[in-house]
């Protein structure tokens, strides 16, 4: 190597950005967060926004179009569509946001064990992952919900049993890399127990990827819930929910398209908000890797 290798490149040095800096400068993250905030406000604050009750039937005013009284019209049983949209959002989003936690926790634990200890633990857990992953997501969810009986409880169980694998893989991958870092070696030579090392040293550093993934996972869960309800296997009537709305409205697609179209658009917009947040977070925490 020649001796004329003086100091680095002139001019184009780009320092790595400090982690939490300037989150508000990320357009995707900001747009997604704002959108999600709007959605959540409307959904949680439904009683403030609309005065109707989602279950109140008014058989004199069925299948009405958009009007001043009913912003999005009414469905075949005279229920106000806009109201059902908001309350349906409540149901679906509540379940989706909660449902994402269990696979997250389960997957993180199993993934950490697999990554940190390696050996047989790793082999067994990864085999399990391979097996679960072999089934198409929906197929397994549908089969499980069928077997367990319809309703929210089955949805939680099914999503947990199927959804943990992605988190396990992600966390395991991150831990495999992270456990070679110096601070882990330092902790080990300091005599800290494995559990402590995993929980307090490794986990905080590797959890970010899982959180980013969780955003897209929530979207998937919403889709799963809505699909199950459409099939009649998920949320049971009369609880309002976007999937049943789409199913109810499908016979009237050519005449009253808004009954089926609008709930679908609601799902898409919610998905958009969450995806933007996920992307924004990914850009923020790993600059230059969009």
């Amino acid at each position, binding site marked *: 190597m020649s001796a004329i290798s003086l100091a680095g490149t002139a001019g184009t040095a780009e320092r790595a950005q400090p982690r939490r800096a300037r989150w508000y400068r990320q357009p995707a993250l900001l747009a997604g967060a704002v959108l999600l905030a709007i959605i959540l406000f409307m959904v949680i604050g439904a009683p403030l926004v609309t005065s109707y009750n989602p279950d109140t039937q008014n058989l004199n005013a069925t299948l009405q179009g958009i009007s001043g009284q009913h912003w999005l019209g009414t469905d075949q049983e005279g229920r106000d569509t806009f109201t059902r949209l908001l309350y349906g959002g409540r149901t679906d989003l509540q379940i989706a946001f909660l449902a994402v936690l269990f696979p997250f926790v389960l997957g993180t634990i199993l993934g950490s064990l697999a990554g940190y200890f390696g050996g047989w633990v790793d082999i067994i857990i990864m085999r399990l992952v*391979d097996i679960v992953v072999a089934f*198409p997501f929906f197929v397994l969810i549908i*089969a499980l919900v069928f077997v367990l009986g319809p309703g929210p409880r089955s949805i939680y169980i099914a999503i947990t049993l199927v959804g943990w694998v992605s988190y396990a893989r992600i966390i395991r991958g991150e831990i495999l890399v992270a456990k070679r870092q110096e601070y882990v070696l330092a902790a080990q030579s300091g005599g800290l127990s494995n559990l402590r090392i995993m929980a307090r040293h490794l986990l905080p550093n590797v959890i970010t990827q899982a959180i980013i993934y969780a955003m897209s996972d929530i979207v998937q869960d919403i889709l799963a819930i809505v699909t199950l309800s459409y099939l009649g296997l998920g949320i049971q009537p009369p609880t309002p929910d976007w999937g049943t709305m789409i199913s109810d409205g499908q016979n009237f697609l050519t005449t009253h398209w808004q009954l089926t179209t609008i709930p679908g658009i609601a799902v898409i917009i919610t998905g958009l908000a969450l995806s933007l947040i996920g*992307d924004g977070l990914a850009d923020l925490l790993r600059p230059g890797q969009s």
Partner: protein
Amino acid sequence: MGRMTFVIRRLLLLIPTAVGVTIIAFFLIHLIPGDPAATILGIHATPKRIALLHQQWGLNRPLASQYWLFMDRLVHGNLGQSLYYGVPVWGLITSHLPTTLWLIVYAGVLGVVISVPLAMIAASRKDAVRDHIVRVVPLLGLGMPAFWLALILQSELAVRLQLFPVTGYGSGPLGHLHAMFLPALTVAVALCPVVIRSLRASMLNVLGADYITTARAKGVPGHRLFVRHVLRNAVIPAVTVLGINIGFLVGGTVIVEQVFALPGIGNLMINSIFQRDFPVVQGVALVFGIMVVLVNLLTDVAYASLDPRVRFDR
């Protein structure tokens, strides 16, 4: 080593996974709360019928012995008897499988036809307007329920404009292509977000690579550069991503078959769920699992074929 040995080795490695798949399919029945036989028969339950099912499935025996019975039957191609139709499950599945396979391949082709040009447009000028437009597509597509899109396409293009048959499979190869266009398009659109994203990313990666600069410095003209140098390298990681997501491709067909009333195994499964025909549900789930395992093998082979650095001696 050679391609054949590679495939065989991979197949052997897949056996534990395949066995695991059968175990899960087997276990589905035991997740049913209470007496599975009674629950499944539902209103048709009579003590005689329950006893019959118990005997058929060996529910009185220890678990391991039940599994052995299950596997023994499986190896002989016996997936049980449909409770609803009274015919062997295997026969039902084989008659419905071709439709689903058609749909998967059709959707895959359409997906590629849509994704590749879009990814190319986006990657050709990063961060320009066209790039942002293309990147919005996956954001919307990821959150789109497939059945909803199916309903809308069906309503607009089939019912209203009558460009396509509303439901069904059509007859003859051309009839199939015509009738299955909307379902295949729906599944393809569901697949596009993931493929566009990964293709765009890998294309950007490749475009920045040194060997592309070399090719430009050689004076290789645009189209040749794109196909022989960019695309040829960019598809490799995209194939992996596609393989990982094949589960979604296949899963998406289930609900789409339902909406368009296509006689495929997905539709069979859902109808069987409503008919409480458990053996069929179990059989289809198993077939799906094995299918995905095989597709993963295919993906591995394709990947090794495309990337000479990997090759078959691993």
